């Protein structure tokens, strides 16, 4: 593994700082204005933000273009999410080169949801590479300056590659086997799918054992009941606790906008106080706050980790 550090995210991870990252979601739009505005609010709160790539297989603004614009306009370092669902190995390779040329510093290599789950279900699913072989490809490009056929890359891209892990996976042993495989492939850090239950997290860390790769644990403080409900119903491997879901549902009835916001924040802070307290005792290197469109919750949650 190369020792070079190209991004602020990797610098903080290597320095052993407790890391916080955020998430931005480009939409079905011809601009990236909203995520840019969100990113501006998040500057200083998180070291970097994931920029989603067609999440749940809904076709949105290209995440490389969005990452570039967000970095440029908001000064927020981005983690460019890159899925194997929509591109073959040639397109992935060109995208990684493109990302390097645009000055992107981090890629999160993902298999991606199947296209049939999203808004373009008749698309041909690609999956020419998988998350592991994409990680391997990126490391070969960056560290050895070679493409898949061993051909030399002039001025190779300078960026880091992360991978995902799903602590709540139905078959934990197979999931952990896959995570170990990603580590073999040279993944530089891991970011978990959203977790709400501390015992799910503990079991995952136990099964994984000691590894050299830093792990960011994903949490999802929901801004609305709808967001929490969507996660519970549609995101594989994520169970939202019924108590939390009910408390969020109750906020729907509050008419006054400000009071509603206060109550949503209170429910989140109450729920995550215990979770984050527990997180301090785990091997996690930081926390990925998937609070899309909800930057105001990040400072109080970060405070809980102090």
């Amino acid at each position, binding site marked *: 593994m190369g020792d070079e550090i190209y991004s602020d995210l990797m610098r903080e991870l290597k320095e052993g700082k407790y890391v916080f990252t955020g998430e931005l979601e480009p939409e079905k739009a011809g601009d990236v204005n909203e995520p840019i505005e969100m990113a501006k609010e998040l500057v200083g709160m998180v070291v970097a933000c994931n920029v989603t790539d067609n999440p749940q297989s809904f076709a949105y603004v290209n995440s490389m273009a969005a990452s570039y614009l967000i970095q440029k306009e908001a000064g927020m370092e981005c983690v460019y999410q890159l899925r194997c669902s929509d591109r073959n190995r040639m397109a992935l390779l060109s995208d990684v080169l493109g990302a390097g040329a645009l000055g992107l510093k981090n890629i999160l290599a993902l*298999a991606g949801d*199947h296209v049939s789950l999203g808004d373009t279900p008749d698309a041909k699913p690609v999956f020419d590479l998988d998350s592991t072989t994409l990680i391997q490809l990126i490391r070969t490009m960056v560290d050895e300056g070679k493409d898949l056929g061993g051909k030399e890359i002039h001025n190779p891209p300078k960026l880091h590659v992360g991978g995902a892990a799903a602590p709540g996976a139905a078959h934990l042993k*197979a999931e952990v086997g896959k995570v170990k*495989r990603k580590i*073999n492939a040279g993944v530089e850090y891991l970011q978990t799918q959203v977790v709400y239950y501390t015992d799910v997290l503990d079991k995952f860390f136990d099964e994984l054992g000691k590894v050299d790769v830093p792990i960011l644990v994903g949490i999802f403080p929901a801004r609305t009941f709808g967001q929490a409900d969507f996660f519970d119903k549609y995101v594989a491997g994520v169970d939202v606790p019924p108590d939390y879901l009910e408390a969020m549902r109750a906020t729907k009835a509050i008419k006054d906008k400000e009071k509603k916001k206060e109550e949503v924040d209170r429910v989140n802070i109450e729920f995550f106080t215990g979770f984050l307290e527990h997180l301090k005792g785990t091997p996690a290197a930081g926390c990925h706050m998937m609070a899309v469109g909800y930057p105001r919750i990040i400072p109080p949650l970060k405070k809980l980790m102090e």
Partner: protein
Amino acid sequence: MIAQEKKPMEEILGYLEGKQKVVVMGCGGCATFYHTGDTKAVNEMAANLTKEGKDVFKMPLPFSIQACDIEKSGVWLEKNRKELENRDALLVLSCGDGVQVVTEYMDEKMGITKSVIPANDALGLVGGGPKKFKETCQSCGMCELGKTAGICPLTSCGKGLMNGPCGGVRVDNKCEIDEKKDCAWVKIYERMEKLGELDKFISIRSPHEWSKAARPRLFEIEEPVGMDVIGAMKGMLTVKFGPKPKLDE
């Protein structure tokens, strides 16, 4: 075998718009097995088309005469040359392979160019039976089963991942894409565990070599199967199977 199902009648009628005189051709191979091109299916299709006012000529193929095996099915085409020449369209009750082999033969060997219409949708290479079948192989040209405990990662995994499982495995180890299907990568894990080969599970499998499936693939064998084999196949039909062994024997 190539699994298949019948296309909706409206779709077929759409293709046949403006075409009055139609040949309905069957298939004695897979399409007979799946009842999409057997004699009964040919009769039913002919009756439906007649009801729609079409003038129909029926051309079922006997059992074991497959539409795609042109040396044999060609005999039936030649026998019915007159009808084929005088008709507006040929509706073939086989998989897409049968449809195209027949089309090419008529075009190139018989000099008869007609509209050829598929009556079925082919669903892949399946195994199992007698009632339930599962697609397990897509004839990729570079078999990976030796790396995945005998379960095809390209076909049995909904995403065709060489290194799974993905993060979407559902409760009861079902697939992210369809809760009725098992996650192939959990199955691969479990078989490797039983085989004591979990080290293979965490090793990295290289991306699949799709160049081995450069389409259309052409293929040649040295000794073609001749008409005499059909006689032997007919003989097979009279073979009586003995009683099934009991499971505890």
